[in-house]
């Protein structure tokens, strides 16, 4: 059986420096899979490689059995993989609605589908509907994150790649964003989620992977990852977990 998304022995180099080593990850239809790792572990690089933004050194990425290596980013979206990048990356001088329309750029001639996708985004994030004519640079950080996710959904992807959607958000918003991620998933979109908020990321996912310095250090069902002593200490704040469910961020890139 072929996986929906299958990353096989992927290695990535920046210049001469290797940042991913033989990483294999798969995502099945209907799943949420989390990828955890410290700053610089290579999480964003992994998602960017799937999206075609960074060249693949060795190994392969398959989507429904089709090899994606060296297919340009704008073709990969068309195939059904959409990335909400780290740091949101909304287009600040464009309105909320223009940002969303660009998310549906691959289907810009299909007016009905674009309208349906937009309605769906507005029902997930009602605030975006209120702000549709506002320049997205004037949105709050949380609203920008919603816009980034909404924009990624506009192409009606089969696979949604989320890079640190909770980065820099207040706890109340973090909860809201994770609830919406679950909802998106229950509507039929499979999700590969990169997070530093390990606690939340493991709660929402069925399986998880841990990246350490570009190597896959652990993987498995979330229950077994959560009970792993080393992972508890490194990513779940050890014994302090109950007191500090939202570990402070050590930095952002």
């Amino acid at each position, binding site marked *: 059986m072929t996986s929906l998304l299958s990353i096989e022995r992927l290695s990535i180099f920046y210049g001469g420096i290797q940042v991913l080593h033989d990483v294999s990850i798969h995502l099945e239809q209907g799943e949420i899979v989390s990828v955890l790792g410290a700053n610089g572990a290579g999480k964003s690089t992994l998602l960017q490689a799937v*999206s*075609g*933004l960074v060249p693949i050194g060795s190994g392969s990425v398959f989507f429904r059995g089709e090899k994606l290596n060296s297919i*340009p*980013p*704008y073709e990969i*979206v*068309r195939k059904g993989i*959409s*990335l909400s*990048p780290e*740091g*949101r*990356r909304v*287009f*600040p*001088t*464009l309105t909320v609605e*223009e940002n969303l*329309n*660009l*998310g549906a*750029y*691959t289907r*810009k001639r299909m007016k009905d589908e674009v309208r349906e996708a937009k309605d769906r985004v507005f029902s997930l994030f009602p605030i975006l509907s209120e702000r549709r004519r506002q*320049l997205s*640079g*004037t*949105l*709050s*950080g949380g609203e*920008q994150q919603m816009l980034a996710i909404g*924009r990624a959904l506009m*192409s009606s992807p089969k696979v949604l790649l989320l890079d640190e959607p909770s980065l820099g958000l207040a706890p109340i918003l973090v909860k809201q964003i994770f609830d919406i991620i679950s909802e998106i998933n229950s509507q039929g979109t499979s999700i590969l989620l990169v997070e530093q908020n390990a606690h939340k990321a493991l709660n929402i996912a069925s399986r998880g992977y841990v990246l350490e310095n570009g190597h896959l250090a652990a993987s498995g069902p979330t229950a077994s990852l959560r009970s792993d002593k080393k992972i508890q200490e490194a990513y779940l704040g050890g014994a302090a977990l109950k007191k500090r469910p939202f570990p402070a961020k050590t930095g*952002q890139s």
Partner: protein
Amino acid sequence: MHVILEQIINGLTIGSFYALIALGYSMVYGVLKLINFAHGDFFTLGSYLGYTVLVFGAAFMTAHFGLWGALIAALVFAGVSLAIVGLIVERVAYRPVYPAGRLPAVVSALGASIFLQNTIMVGWGPRFQAYPATLIPNVHIQLGSIHLTLLQIMILLLSFALMGTLYYIVQKTTFGAAIRATAHDRKTASLMGININKVILFVFTLGPALGAVTGIMVGMYYRQISFTMGWNYGLKAFTASVLGGIGNIPGAMLGGLILGVLEMLGAAYISAAWKDVFVFIILILVLIFRPTGILGEKTAEKV
């Protein structure tokens, strides 16, 4: 009073020349962060091609299509030719050096400019060429106390129609949003499914084509063209695009029009000999007090 109004209209006329050329600089800068120094020479080459069509093809075309047919033929021929030249220059002079960074691209752009200028000189000779005088009926129109020519009205109509169309495409269509998105963040734009190469293709064909059309209008307005005129117009238009906020398309239009009007008012009320100085003083003031230009990005990005 009518002097000031007439000067404003004259200023809008030459301002729309600057604006149309400035669009080429600004679109290319927006998408590629490259100052296309060859753009002024696209304008010159367009003017010469139009000249050739009008001088050598005029008799034939006027006989078959009438005067307006000949004019349209000149505009279309020069526009299409320069769109192709623009693409070739992008392929040959710029694309190979993008990976090497911005400085090599600037040098390459200067090289392309010199190459085009010399090609024009070799092709048409180093002396001034005169556009045919009797092309547009020399009709004078009196609007109240303001005095206009038919040619001037046509130039204003065509310029504003072109600017209006471009404004609509860039500000109101999804492809226009894609151009603005690409200018802002190429990587993320490609994640939207935008093929950056198509955007580059668009700006490198439309910009030179607009320059060519402007070249013909300038030839008809001043009746005299030279192979070096691209420098002067290019510099003014580049100034206009900085004034409006380089990379910003409505800004280029606004900057061009403002520059033209200021230049004409300066020439009328201060000194015609100092009009260029006046223009650059304005530029310096804008750069001191508003370095991003009038409509330049306010970069309200949240991190």
